[in-house]
């Protein structure tokens, strides 16, 4: 059994109102049928452009948004139907690290109190034990334990991100959802945080859901990668398969759009530049939602892409990798 299993998850947000108390004028389909599995100790990458729904998936998993439909199971237990009180023990098991280390720490709390708060909420230990735990956590993330009485503004961006990581570790979770944990950091600091996340994973057997738009970072840290486009998953594969042999035209375009820090390669390689923008999730295109931008659409006969949404399925020949595309795979 998977540690976490998400099946056909939908999250639709109401937009506008018809009349004062009327029904919503439209539904924004942020997550539109996502299925994923996460094993203990693994890192699953969730990539896609802004607005593709990757952060919404994370928020539904962790219970910050309720699901519109579909299921989220943690060790076989359905989470979407739990009451607030029933949720509490599962919150301990799943923690989150946020993108912006400046906005995700309370500026009026000391580091000691930031790190002890999760323990206090879950009524773990006495105040003295919590203080000791805070010191232990600071050491685990490579910060000076003597700085435990400082405030967030006294730390740099990279150090604050370490505090955010320490806070996520406080309750000894099984899963940490990292929502763009390094994209606000400078390159030299980014590498430090990635190495720290990898070290902590090994030490505490953590499973990560790693949400990012930087595919080079994802390739470095993830074992499996799911690519999202407009609320749906278009491809899931093991890291080397996905990067070595991308099967979905959108994955190919994403990989091709990344600039390489290698001037010779940059000047010579062929690049797929996608036309246009990501369509609005308020009014997604018919059929495959990628079809208006897809460079390979002409290869599918009868304009099937515009009519019929492809399902996320394995190849006819089997194998673990999944893809949602009408293109012939042979």
């Amino acid at each position: 059994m998977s540690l976490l299993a998400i099946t056909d998850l939908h999250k639709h947000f109401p937009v506008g109102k018809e009349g004062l108390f009327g029904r919503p004028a439209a539904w924004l389909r942020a997550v539109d049928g996502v299925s994923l599995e996460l094993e203990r100790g693994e890192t699953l990458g969730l990539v896609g452009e802004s607005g593709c729904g990757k952060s919404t998936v994370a928020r539904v998993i962790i219970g910050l948004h309720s699901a519109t439909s579909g299921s989220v199971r943690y060790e076989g237990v359905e989470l979407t139907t739990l009451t607030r009180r029933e949720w509490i023990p599962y919150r301990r098991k799943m923690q989150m690290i946020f993108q912006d280390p400046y906005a995700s720490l309370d500026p009026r709390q000391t580091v000691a109190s930031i790190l002890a708060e999760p323990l206090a909420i879950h009524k773990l230990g006495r105040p003295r034990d919590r203080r000791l735990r805070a010191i232990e956590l600071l050491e685990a993330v490579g910060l000076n334990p003597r700085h435990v009485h400082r405030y967030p503004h006294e730390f740099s961006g990279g150090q604050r991100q370490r505090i955010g990581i320490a806070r996520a570790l406080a309750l000894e979770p099984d899963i940490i959802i990292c929502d763009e944990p390094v994209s606000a950091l400078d390159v030299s600091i980014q590498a430090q945080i990635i190495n720290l996340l990898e070290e902590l994973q090994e030490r505490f057997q953590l499973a990560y859901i790693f949400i990012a738009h930087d595919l080079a970072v994802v390739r470095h840290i993830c074992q499996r990668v799911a690519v999202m486009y407009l609320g749906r998953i278009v491809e899931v594969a093991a890291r080397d398969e996905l990067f070595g042999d991308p099967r979905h035209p959108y994955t190919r375009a994403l990989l091709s759009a990344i600039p390489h820090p290698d001037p010779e390669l940059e000047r010579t390689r062929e690049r797929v530049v996608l036309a246009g923008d990501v369509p609005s999730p308020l009014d997604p295109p018919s059929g495959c939602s990628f079809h208006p931008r897809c460079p390979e659409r002409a290869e599918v006969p009868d304009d099937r892409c515009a009519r019929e949404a492809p399902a996320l399925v394995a190849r006819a020949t089997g194998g673990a990798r999944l893809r949602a595309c009408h293109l012939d795979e042979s």
Partner: protein
Amino acid sequence: MALLEVRNLRVRFEMYHGTVLAVNGVDITLEEGETLGLVGESGSGKSVTNLAFMGLLPTPPAVVAADAMHFEGRDLMRLSESELRAIRGNEISMIFQDPMTSLNPLLTIGRQLTEVLEVHKGMTRRAARKACAASLEDVGMPNPEARLDQYPHELSGGLRQRVMIAMALLCQPKILLADEPTTALDVTIQAQILELMKDIQAKTGMAILLVTHDLGVIAGMAERVNVMYAGRLVETASTGALFARPLHPYTRGLLSSVPTLDSDPDAELYTIPGQPPDLVDLPAGCAFHARCGFAVDRCRDELPDLERHTDPVTSEARFSACFESKNLAAFVKNAAGTDDATVDATGGGRP
């Protein structure tokens, strides 16, 4: 004569908690039609350098000084505010990182675009509107006529950045200062915008000064690169030579700490230890010495100047502000396993 020539630019900010030494002696030469990359981390002074050319820093708190700041032979430091205004947006244009906050949300796209031509070219609004629609079409905007009557919030990030570029290009500037032009955009949109900037440059021959922290963007766009650290240039070279043979330990650290699509994904990432220095309280000697694996005693007391080196492969003149650059060159060469003997190797390399 270079299009833009800046010698020994210094910018400091007099703040309540002390003096922030944001730029501490930077030289920049920009030739016609070239793309010069300016790389560095946040706080390295790259954006402040850009704003200083344009006279856009608020004084106080900023104090700007330079030995020379010439644009086509005109001394930018001696120009009056109205003379500067005739250059800004006309001969030198700028695009900023965040297309949402750099457009006025209360005015239509058309109003904001036509203003540029009315002010700088004295056009009537009707003529300006026509020119603006053409300019939007040039930057690949679908239905340009209709866009003129829309407000910024009605456009996506990529389209807004296209509006910013169209606006910057309206007067056919000689220099485009692009400060992180694609950082706020998704990769597929970034690819579109970068292609667009290249196309326009090929057509008009404008020079681009591209400020970014993304080494991948620099690799694809710039012919030459300046690397900044703590308000100074630490290395400058042609893009190919800089990426292949960095002579400054900071450049080398930056290049190796970025994961790429062809690096070994299972190897631990190289990291530059520590944090960038506090610009209020810069360390003595080289600002990078505390984080540098090559540092020797001299680095702690003495500030290295940009020193000329000859690239062993391209034979170009390149500059690095490091006492150990020669050893670093030998180290990089040994690591690459070549036996090129043009670099005077003394000592060998420390990691």
